[in-house]
């Protein structure tokens, strides 16, 4: 039994190594991705362009405008603008925000100690809209502090930020990329590897030989497990070298749990390959099942807790959800198996279940 | 556009090559070959794998422009009139080239359409081919389910749908059982008898015997050419197998013979 598995294994390795173009892509692509997206993905909005309709024209209103333009995030687009211009300007996309200061701005401030301004925000991208609003609130808070001096507060709030004191978004996203890349590459690899044999007819050859389904499956999966692990190593290494993402926990544990995750992802791909007849279909199935859910539902960018209930349930069955907690936990929190045992067990269970179904489906094909 | 019949009156030569060469980098895949194939002749290219047969055939079909020399197929220059050539030739390669995920009838319809047959023409041709190949019951079967021998015959029929004056067959019988192979060659003989020129490459020595004339290729060159009986006589051998081995092992004999031919 072991010899046969070994034979399939060796063959699979030869396949992988011979097609150097694919190999190069498999190994280099993650590095490229981590470099590119590690830099690209941040949640810090820069350069919010705004214009002002200042109907007050008082020293106070000018101070307000100045507070916005000196904030660093906002960039004043000069020139007159009227209310009627706004739709046109938003459609031209040269500004995100119009700050409208009413004529009674200074009068209200002096008389009632309370005044208001209008923020007209282009919210066609709701994320941009939220950012612009939040940053504006910050500017206004600063303006009020300036006007009032030390506020007569009864108590203070002193935050202490754990794990990522500067709240750098690279620390958040780069470990997430590890999960994303591993999931996508591993699942694709196996689903294609097996359907390719089906398409070229070599699978029949293997199926008529006395090899057992489990042996085929193991022989098929193992090389890619190693490849996936290599990938994980390269990605984690570049994360820590290029982006100074700390690895506070045990590297060994990270490797072990990554192995488990790769195993799940591969089994996932394997399952698709038993369903699909052609490489094209295997590819579509895998892409549709992995790419959007992994990016959107696993907590990679968007917090799971904020999602509607149905989506939270779906997130619970995504392997990437668990692995994300594991990577971030080990790299940033420095936690160990004690805290992550549930996650590890869930991954193990998922992998075993998927592998079982895939092997069963193989047997069905044989009969 | 010229029909094959117009051409027949002006040319009796279907394929002609003069010092035709193809170079890939430093590698001379086809090295200055010259030949003439008459209309209605069965002409064979015999040689081991990598001898340059496929490259030569691809140049004749207008798939590859030659690096040097010239060739005319059906009266058209391969370097400048590839499209006119394609209208007048059929081609079937060692790679089985029907769509496995289309049915038999769909394959016929598709290639008929590609060759510009009318709707009516496609309908009648489909009926005729299914009848000839006795595939009537299989018309809606996926091609992948057919036995290899039938696939081959179907592929041949499909490549003849537009009634080309020349058909190029590149290792057409690879992997096919002997009975199917014999049947296949019977069709080829019928074709030639009806005036179609057949240009075939093979590395099966027994198949070489079916050809009226063969040229033996070795390392990109034609090292000898003639009818099978002529070649056997010239080298004093009893089978094409022996002739081939003799020529390949003794390049000197080949040189002399090639010069004589």
């Amino acid at each position, binding site marked *: 039994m072991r010899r046969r598995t070994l034979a399939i294994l060796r063959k699979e390795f030869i396949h992988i190594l011979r*097609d150097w173009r*694919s190999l190069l*892509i*498999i190994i280099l692509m993650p590095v490229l991705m981590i470099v590119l997206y590690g830099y*690209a993905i941040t949640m810090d909005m*820069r350069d919010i362009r705004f214009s002002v309709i200042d109907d007050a024209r008082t020293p106070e209103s000018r101070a307000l405008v100045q507070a916005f333009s000196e904030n660093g995030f906002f960039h004043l687009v000069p020139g007159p603008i009227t209310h009627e211009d706004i739709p046109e300007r938003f459609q031209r996309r040269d500004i995100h925000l119009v700050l409208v200061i009413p004529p009674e701005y200074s009068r209200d401030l002096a008389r009632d100690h309370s005044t208001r301004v209008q923020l007209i925000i282009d919210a*066609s991208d709701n994320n941009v809209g939220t950012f612009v609003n939040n940053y504006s609130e910050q500017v206004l808070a600063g303006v009020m502090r300036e006007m009032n001096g030390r506020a007569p507060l009864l*108590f203070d709030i002193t935050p202490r930020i754990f794990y990522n004191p500067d709240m750098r978004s690279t620390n958040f996203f780069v470990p997430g990329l590890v999960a994303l890349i591993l999931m996508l590459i591993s699942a694709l690899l196996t689903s294609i590897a097996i359907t390719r044999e089906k398409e070229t007819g070599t699978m029949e050859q293997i199926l008529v030989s006395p090899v057992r389904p489990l042996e085929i499956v193991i022989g098929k999966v193992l090389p890619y497990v190693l490849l996936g692990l290599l990938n994980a190593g390269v990605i984690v290494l570049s994360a820590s070298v290029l982006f100074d993402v700390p690895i506070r926990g045990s590297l060994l544990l990270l490797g072990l749990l990554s192995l488990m995750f790769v195993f799940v992802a591969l089994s996932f791909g394997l399952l698709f390959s038993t*369903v699909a007849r052609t490489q094209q279909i295997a590819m579509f199935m895998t892409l549709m099942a992995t790419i959007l859910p992994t990016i959107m539902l696993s907590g990679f960018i968007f917090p799971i807790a904020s999602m509607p209930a149905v989506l939270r349930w779906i997130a619970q069955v995504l392997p990437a959800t668990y692995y994300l907690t594991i990577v971030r936990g080990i790299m940033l929190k420095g936690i160990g198996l004690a805290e992550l045992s549930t996650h590890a067990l869930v991954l193990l269970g998922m992998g075993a279940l998927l592998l079982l179904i895939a092997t069963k489906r193989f047997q069905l094909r044989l009969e | 556009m010229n029909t094959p019949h117009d051409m027949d009156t002006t040319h009796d030569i279907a394929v002609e090559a003069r010092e035709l060469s193809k170079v890939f980098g430093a590698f001379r895949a086809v090295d200055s070959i010259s030949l003439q194939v008459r209309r209605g002749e069965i002409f064979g290219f015999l040689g081991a794998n990598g001898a340059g047969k496929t490259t030569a055939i691809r140049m004749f079909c207008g798939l590859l422009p030659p690096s040097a020399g010239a060739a005319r197929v059906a009266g058209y220059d391969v370097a400048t009139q590839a499209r006119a050539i394609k209208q007048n030739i059929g081609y079937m390669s060692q790679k089985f080239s029907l769509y496995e995920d289309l049915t038999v009838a769909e394959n016929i319809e598709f290639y008929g359409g590609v*060759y510009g047959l009318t709707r009516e023409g496609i309908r009648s041709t489909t009926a005729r081919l299914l009848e000839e190949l006795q595939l009537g019951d299989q018309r809606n079967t996926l091609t992948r389910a057919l036995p290899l021998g039938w696939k081959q015959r179907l592929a041949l029929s499909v490549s003849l749908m537009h009634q080309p004056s020349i058909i190029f067959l590149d290792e057409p019988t690879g992997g096919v059982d002997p009975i199917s192979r014999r049947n296949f060659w019977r069709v080829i003989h019928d074709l030639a008898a009806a005036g179609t020129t057949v240009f075939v490459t093979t590395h099966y020595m027994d198949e070489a015997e079916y050809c009226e004339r063969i040229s033996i290729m070795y390392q990109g060159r034609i090292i000898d050419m003639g009818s099978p009986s002529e070649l056997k006589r010239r080298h004093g051998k009893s089978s094409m197998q022996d002739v081939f081995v003799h020529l390949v092992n003794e390049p000197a004999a080949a040189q002399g013979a090639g010069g004589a031919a």
Partner: protein
Amino acid sequence: MRRIFYLVQKEFRQVFRDKSMIGILFVVPFIQLVLLGNAITTEVKHVRVLLGDRDGTPMSRAFLQSFGGTEYIDVVGRESDERAIARALDRGDASVAVVVPRHFQRDVLRGERPAVQVLADGIDGNSAGVALGYVSRIAAEYQARLISEDPALGRQLRDLRRVQAEPRFWFNPDLQSKVYVVPGIVALLLLIITVFLTSMGIVREKEIGTLEQLMVTPIRATQLILGKIIPFSILGMLEIAIAMGLVYVLFGIGVEGSLLLLFAESGLFILTTLGVGIFISTISETQQQALFVGWFFMIFAILLSGFFIPIANMPETVQYLTYLNPMRYFMVILREIYLKGSSLPHLLNETLAMVVFGVTVFSAAVWRYRVKLG
């Protein structure tokens, strides 16, 4: 023309031969559309908060009482021991802990301004910042209540000068994510389907030898390419039409601008992605290679399209890189027409960019084909 018809017919037959393809093209995408339409939001809800009370006075209890009761904060427990809190953060059981210090009530009444400690998991910096904001707001509201009960402090509060912001969110007043996400998913699905159907389809014909067979027929290269473009463009347009209908029926999101313009721009986008698919097929020998190259392009196109992360958030160099991404332009166009009702003059730059991209990629593909034949 008739030859192209047969090429198109063949392509459709092949795509739909496998019944699972129908599911892949027309069922799964729309399930995802419906499900994920609600998913993307940077709004932070259900922050898991631990409350710690080291004071145990009416005031500290009242303060902590004011947490919870909203969808923004879930109180998950009570804990004031720092080590236990750290463990809870480690395990991810809580992401924020609020700890009221000893002598809180006494110090407040003495005017000594005690400090309430907030411990937060900062890994997701954005969420952490927002969560801190929630805590501050609750603290501020509680103080306001205390102050209003104390006349002396009340006067001070009246002297406090305030500037209130009235935000108006145009085009998407409730900051709904689906308004924004759904067009994005449509673009994404189009991208996946068109790039992979063409690149893998052509490479497959290369692998099995039918492409060579087609090359010896009198078909012209342009006819061959049209035979690939037409069926997949039709499929792509169909996807768009279905998606738009679904979005209207399910989410009530209609197209603000010209439907015609939207379809024309979609067609243009599909042409650029088909061009990419064809180009990929010219540089790949096997379907696996085509798949990986296509995949790489796709991830690039998705993450740098402004779909998930606003392009304005990216570093300048990366922003330049996004100019090479046709999806970036299409995302803008789609959203502008959909939500703002913008017309062509406002979208001229994006449209031109896609035209340039399309022309370039098609020329490159044709050039590669020439090189291969020569």
